[in-house]
């Protein structure tokens, strides 16, 4: 099998990589680039723990091939905060207690960033509908919905400094 040369931008940094055709995006991000915030759980595109953004759209990195991100911009949880300044979604998750074990959290937060880019002021029902592909086994979801609604308000009213995508 021939390795595929590719260029990809990950969290704003350009990479020139050579990947085997069967390498998944999660393998590429975790094992090649050391982005261990991308979490693997179900490995079959059900739980959303591995959610990252490819050109601002949420994808399950466990079931996307690395070379499919060729020429694109990938954003992971590591690329969200600006130095010590958390992204408003991250802040809301902390303030609202929207995490326990935290294993679902990176994927949850990335899916939220995508949701709020598409729909800046969702209703609770729209949040539940959009986020149904992200599973959390710990929190019972209530505080995650609250955090997402709070983040949406914060993004609408606050200075939009960090959600550039």
């Amino acid at each position: 099998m021939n390795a595929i040369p590719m260029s990809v931008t990950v969290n704003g940094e350009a990479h020139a990589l050579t990947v085997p055709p069967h390498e998944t995006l999660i393998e590429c991000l975790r094992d090649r680039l050391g982005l261990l915030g991308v979490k693997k759980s179900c490995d079959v595109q059900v739980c959303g723990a591995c959610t990252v953004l490819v050109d601002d759209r949420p994808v399950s990195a466990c079931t996307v091939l690395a070379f499919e991100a060729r020429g694109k911009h990938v954003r992971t949880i590591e690329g969200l905060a600006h130095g010590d300044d958390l992204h408003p979604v991250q802040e809301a998750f902390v303030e609202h207690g929207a995490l326990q074990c935290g294993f679902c959290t990176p994927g949850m937060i990335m899916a939220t960033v995508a949701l709020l880019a598409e729909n800046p002021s969702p209703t609770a029902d729209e949040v539940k509908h959009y986020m149904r592909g992200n599973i959390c086994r710990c929190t019972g979801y209530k505080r995650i919905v609250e955090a997402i609604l709070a983040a949406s308000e914060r993004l609408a009213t606050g200075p939009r400094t960090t959600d550039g995508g």
Partner: protein
Amino acid sequence: MAVDRLTVVGRSVPRLDAHDKVTGAARYVSDFILPGMAHAKLWRSPVPHARLLAVDGARAAAAPGVLAVCTADDLPVKRLAYGPAYKDQPILAREVVRYAGEPVVAVVADTPARADAALALIDVRYEELPAATNAEEAQAPGAPVIHTTLDRAGHFRDLDGLRPVAGTNVCQHYRYERGDLARAVAEADLVVDDVYRYPALSHHALEPHCAVARVDADGITVWSGTQHPFPVRKDLAEIFDVPLAHVQVVVPLIGGAFGGKCYTKIEPLAAALAARVRRPVRLALTLEESARTITRHSVVVRLRTAVRRDGTLLARECDVVLDTGAYADIGPRVATKAGSRAPGPYRIPCLRIDARCVYTNNVPAGAYRGYGVPQVTWASESQIDVIAERLGIDPFTLRERNLLKRGEEYVAGDTPLDGDMADGLGQAARAIGWGAPLTRNRGRGLACAMKDGGGTHAVSTAVVHINADGSVILLSGSVEVGQGARTALAQIAAETLGVPFEAVVVPAPDTSLTPYDHGTSASRSTTVMGLAVAAAAKDAREQLLALAAKLLDAPPSALTIREGKIAHGNRTLTLAEVISGHFGLVGGEVTGVGTFVPGEWSGSLGGATVFWETGMGAAEVEVDRETGEVHVRKYVSAADVGQAINPRECAAQDEGAAMQGIGPALFEARVGERGQLLNPGLIDYRVPTFADLPEALDSLLIENADGPGPFGAKGVGESGTFCAAPAIGNAVARAVGVRLTELPMTPERVWHALVSKGASP
């Protein structure tokens, strides 16, 4: 210390791990990378019961990148079997496999993909044996006896008294009897007799089991997401026949556990493989493999209850059968607890309880949030409503009349009830709008339950170091599974010491550095470890005050510590000034030690209950008569936490637990056929999603500072799972008049029940 004077405890401070968890910096075992690390994959039995004839691993061994292909006989161990109750579970199957999915051969290779690829080259010959794939089959005459000899583990005091039934598959038979059953039944105005069923469940913590092991001249080091680092260390020491000091178990953050990571699981195999290939080995299971490692017991409960016309409970006969799978794990203790809690939190003069833990050729069943209480509560609280309906008494009134009161004993000699359950149930009932009018097809239901919390004869020790700059290191063996243990314990230490919360750091448990702790289970960390932490902090505080007294030339009793400063009148010293003042240099530290040793050997469970974890639940449902679908519109969970150390995290634990109760009430279940698990992964095993969140999900924290823990705290985290299923079932019955006795209450089951009832509104 008066509660209104508290400055750190009782406040919803941000979790210590929150920042790392939202930035992706949090590290779990599955993120561990060691230089030269190799990867293991397992060949698992495709059949539930078989004699192993031959394993041919030659082709796999020759495959690219493969370092070793190991069967049980290739493992460099002194003993093959382990287990917390019986040493009945081999690290890899030898001679016989007892469940479909049991690991038989391990392949170690330089990459996970190469190890995986080599599995297909392994050839195992076996001869199938008759299998018992549920507890009924396993108890039938002529059933295959799955273990012919049982070797007691000897790890835990309460498990010394296990009563297996020789020559059968019953590995524990718990019995309890009081009062004259025949007389009570003769005196009763009503006797209700029902059978309830609760299916096996998968924990599905999002992080599957993972262990990384290294074996070198210094000994064995295992990084694992275990809830029991010290018991795992003991197992490893026995398996490899080395002193405890040569085994180190380190537990980073854990991506959820819910009991599924209790006791020893894959750690011995990872260590044995590392010893074999002389390289660090990572054994990371898939989520499906985790579901083939451990389950929640499926339980059948037969309940016969005798009651007087006025609703007074006279007698309860409970027959509880648990399918514990092919290896006992902690099943015998789950059976004991399920049996002992089956009657419910009521004053019942006459009891007869039989609980049997039965080996079958299924995946082993063990601990799962609530230790058998959710299963028996499904039965006992459903039946309370059946009784209420038959007698025409309001279900709340019936419960209130029979609930144990504060100070009453559940079982003679055990700790009396330390809370007011009727009050808690009343709060839940009011919050759900009990008694208010409802629209058609809606109904409300209640349930309540209790469980002995804090663990059975479980010791905890903590150490507090105050560094020369006044910062604090808290060493505690409580693992962080997401419950917020590190944060709560840091709050207890900060409050007791009189330092700001931010001054305290809580490193990951490491059995070579952290003092002994029994484990993180049974909602015990805040209460039991909390007491050890408070004692350690008090010890350190007293030492500091003694040092400061000399420097300030005042008696220690005249000094105060607040916000990290020691004051006498208007003179103050920082902790750093006290420590360097005493040692005369910038170094030095003050170290406090605290230990909790549980009370006397007594009570029905072989140890005094530390505290009673009580849960009260109230549900409002709407039933779609066309489809049988049950919608939970509102759910209220009440938890008696004594004193919330961190109210936000307490409520969050309780909400999460309630959702873990709602899942099995409505749709969660493992589906098996002839010993094959048909839904191992998340594609077919449905867990609650955002879509299942009720319109209102509320947690009420009951705080009377009446717990035995620090500042009056009691444990929390399991009780939310107790009541959801029966409260929802009771609400369905009140909404549309059909009662289900088997979980989950799927649309099909509800629809069939409606149809067979005639479906008239």
